[in-house]
């Protein structure tokens, strides 16, 4: 199993039954070089990672994101998304995940 899939599974394992959940883990390397006035004034690289969770609780949909994959960080991610869902109005057109 890839590291990304492992993170997805660890997030889903923290979501209670009855809650719809979708996890996306995005990783990659981004780099950019900028030239100005005849020299390189910026030369940057980023090993990017983002974990995005979308949950739906009885038609109340919410999202949360983090860059971290520790157990604490993933538990916090799930908690944030569920807390946010509780505040959302029910989407009557929600088709389900």
């Amino acid at each position, binding site marked *: 199993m890839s590291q990304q899939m492992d993170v997805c599974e660890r997030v889903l394992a923290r979501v209670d039954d009855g809650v719809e959940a979708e996890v996306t883990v995005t990783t990659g390397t981004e780099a950019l070089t900028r030239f100005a006035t005849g020299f390189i004034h910026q030369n*940057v690289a980023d090993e990017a990672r983002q974990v995005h969770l979308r949950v739906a609780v009885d038609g109340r949909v919410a999202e949360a994101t983090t860059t971290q994959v520790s157990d604490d960080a993933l538990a916090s991610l799930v908690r944030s998304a569920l807390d946010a869902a509780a505040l959302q109005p029910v989407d009557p057109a929600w088709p389900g995940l």
Partner: protein
Amino acid sequence: MFEYAEAAVEAAIAAGARYADARVMDRRHESMAARNGEIEGLTQEQSVGIGVRALIGSGWGFASTADLDADSTRRAGAEAAAIARASASVPGADLELTPVEVRQDSWANEVREDPLKVPLAEKGDMLVTVTRTMKDHGADTANAGYDIWDTSKWLVSSEGHRIDQNIVECGAHMDATANGETETQRRSYPGIRGQYGTRGWELVRELDLPGNAARIAEEARALLTAPECPSHDAIDLIIGSEQMALQIHESVGHAVELDRILGWEAAFAGTSWLNLAQLGSLRFGSDLMNVTADATLPGALGSFGYDDEGTPAHPVDIVKNGIWVGTLSGRDSAALAGIRESGGAVRGDGYNRLPMVRMTNVGLLPGTSSVEEMIAATDDGILVDTNRSWSIDDKRLNFQFGCEIGWEITNGKRGRMIRNPTYTGIGPTFWQSLDMLGNESEWTFWGTPNCGKGQPGQIGHTGHPSVPCRFHGVRVGVRG
């Protein structure tokens, strides 16, 4: 967290860097929005990682990673040095760093009420309530929202800096839009972007959104039938402090960014009409114009203890008695320009963005006049406030701005409300026409939480201390 930054700096130096710094950053962002009495969205994000800068010869390298462990952070340090070596293969002018006192310190802004600990339900109820109130008082569309940022940083440099900071920022906004037959009118409170600062939730409570919701909805409705702003080639113009904040941001703040003046941002953000050869002699505005960049102002959105190079926050004179005397700078840009010390204006938007020159709190020092005195002293003029639109060229010289609301001023009295007020000008000509300056009781530290700059894009949080001002002979009511 310091241990990760230290490992990264050690790795960069071991890989050949002559200077390196590393910044671990943990930022939480919470944002909620409501429309027409319902919650529209709630964003909760956490971004944690490390960014490393390395300097080899005259070449900078930057590398970042979200993996906070010893191996990953050392790898980021070595990569920053490898990138710096590549940059140095296309050498520019000799690049030095202005000296800065090496400090080991902790800093945090004052927070009376932690905004992330205020229950989500309470914050949501406030937004729902004010949008319902605006709907009940004539708004066809009512929006409200807030943003909270809680940022912790740990900076280590090869010179010995070891600084941690915790910066809490928050603020809120709301707006009411009324639809007419041929146009819409909007009123925002307290400004087009709301109001933000380096403060806790007490700032949002002081804004009193519920107490202003009905008024702005009624004003939006009233604007639909207000007369159009008349066109004048030259008239006295009184500008409220919120619009003045935007005027300062666009026509002074960006123009004095040293990276723009040096041409480094020409490819994207633009350059500046200012020429370093005229620093200290160029007349930017009238004698009343005194502008500082001061990151020490308590509660202002552009405040901090240290910038991302470890330079302590300090006030910098930008325009003194109308003469251009200073820039927004960092250690490398200041050295290249022959400026003695860094302006302490280098910040990065997140761990994975290269720190660059950003505005701190760029604003006007107050004068002695009240708005009522400005009105009483004006025979024929226009009073405008609350930014609605902005346009300025890439040298930050020619501009045209629109405001949400205006009033005619005749024989020293405020007259009819007018809609769609606009004005235009050329930076130094406009600022030299400043002839009345608001007093300290009207000095407001406006916050702009959405200043875009850089590639990859970075969002900066800037402050703009501002007062109402009167300008003589301004072109208003521009059409087409």
